[in-house]
């Protein structure tokens, strides 16, 4: 980059300027700029919730106040923590399995039209069947342990992974593939060096959907039959008309979903910096 600085034609300086990472202060300012609106909206929602509870517009056994909900969380941190961990564990294992199986199926489907024609209708069928309806069956088959919950999480998170990966693998620039042919590239070389990396941005958009669905899958599994996990906590609270605990469970569950989603986004930024850079409006002048 040094020699580029010595020849400051407009194109060159622009190229260099874009290579520099913004400083920490600048990045914090960016983050604040991006997040104050949703945070403000969240605050307004909390305010409304507090107002409804404080004025007792709705009976407090139906909608507990934010304070009561927070009290429950702070009161029984061990209890919630233990059950949250079970749900998180089921979600993560389910998600990882869904990603692994999803990627492999997508690659096989793109590699062979026979596989695609055989697998695609079955995938679609598996997606159309309501997972909540199969959940009891899994419990009958696999018992009350974590296995049926993981399986439901896999089943529900798997579809967006396959679809996004197939789309990504097929969206490769045809000219790039022709170029690869003139380079005498073998199919596996073209796959490893061109098709697979090119499909990753698509895959990641599927992963973001999949990770939030995996949480739903795990909780649905817990609803049907479990003695631990947030789904169990919510059912128990429901049975006892313990709405503060119910709200606390919901809150923690949403938090897990958000954290996992953000983790996938961070992984995307770390693994595909070139993609993030391309979306940066500064680069599209």
């Amino acid at each position: 980059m040094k020699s580029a600085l010595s020849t400051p034609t407009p194109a060159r300086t622009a190229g260099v300027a874009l290579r520099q990472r913004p400083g920490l202060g600048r990045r914090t300012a960016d983050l604040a700029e991006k997040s104050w609106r949703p945070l403000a909206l969240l605050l307004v929602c909390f305010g409304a919730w507090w107002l409804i509870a404080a004025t007792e517009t709705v009976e407090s056994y139906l909608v507990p106040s934010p304070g009561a909900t927070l009290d429950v969380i702070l009161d029984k941190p061990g209890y919630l923590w233990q059950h949250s961990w079970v749900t998180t564990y089921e979600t993560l294992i389910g998600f990882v399995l869904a990603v692994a199986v999803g990627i492999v199926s997508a690659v096989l489907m793109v590699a062979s039209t026979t596989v695609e024609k055989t697998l695609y209708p079955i995938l679609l069928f598996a997606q159309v069947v309501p997972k909540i309806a199969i959940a009891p069956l899994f419990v009958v088959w696999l018992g009350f342990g974590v296995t049926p919950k993981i399986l439901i999480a896999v089943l529900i998170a798997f579809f967006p992974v396959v679809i996004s990966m197939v789309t990504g693998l097929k969206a490769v620039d045809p000219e790039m593939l022709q170029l690869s042919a003139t380079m005498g590239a073998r199919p596996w070389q073209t796959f490893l060096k061109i098709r697979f990396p090119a499909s990753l941005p698509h895959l990641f958009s599927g992963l973001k959907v999949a990770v939030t669905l995996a949480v739903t899958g795990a909780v649905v599994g817990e609803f049907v039959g479990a003695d631990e996990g947030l789904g169990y906590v919510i059912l128990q609270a429901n049975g006892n008309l313990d709405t503060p605990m119910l709200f606390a469970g919901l809150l923690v569950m949403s938090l897990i979903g958000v954290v996992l989603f953000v983790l996938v986004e961070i992984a995307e930024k770390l693994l595909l910096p070139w993609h993030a850079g391309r979306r940066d409006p500064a680069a599209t002048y």
Partner: protein
Amino acid sequence: MPEDAALKDGTAPGRDVVPAPAAVPAVRVDGVAVRFRTKKKDVTALREVSLDIAAGEFVAIVGPSGCGKSTLLKLVAGLLAPSSGDVLLGGERVRGPRRDIGYVFQRAALLDWRSARRNILLQAEMRKIPGERARARADELIRMTGLDGFEDAYPHELSGGMQQRVALCRALLHEPPVLLMDEPFGALDALTREQMNVELNRIWRETGTTVILVTHSIAEAAYLADRVVVMSPRPGAVTEIVDVGLPAERAYAATLASPEFRAATGRIRELLGAVSAHD
């Protein structure tokens, strides 16, 4: 042909590979026709095209949109099979994708996740050219195309002209005897395009590669090429081959002002006009 004498005067090392005048042409297109079958009807993209291109020669192909110029390049590269007729590359019949060519498209078609240098080196990785030799060659090309200082930049950080230079380096890395260019500068602004034309002329002289350039610009064709192939609208056929008759080394302004250039562009324009009048 007067330009042949000029070519042999060139001192670039690449010129050594030019075989004796009577040798096989670098590219021979022999009575080639291409027909596509769509659901509704049969389309003839090319009808009976024959063309010989000597080693080290620069040939430009101009013609209205859809006349099969790009199809012709794909035939030479072996990316497309002719319905009838033969394409020969270095005297050998083209049967599938050919490795002994370099290809440049209108869009640079770079890999977003690779720096300029690693995009250029993709060619070496696919061909298993030893790393040391490939890197030395890449450095040489980076210098030749004026990419120094941009080796580590990513495609989205480069201007269109710079991206096209990277694509050109990639196409030249394995020192192909034939370079195929499909409207490589079509997406660039006029000034960058002129600059790229001047550089392509120099690179052609330095490498001694045979070049086939498909273009929409009459000026670009006449400035760069030894011969300009003018094609008729679909179904494409060669209307006439115009000899430009300029030496290989061409200063831009002087060339554009020369009577040979003006005669050539005048003739090409006349041919294209006559051709489109049939529509």
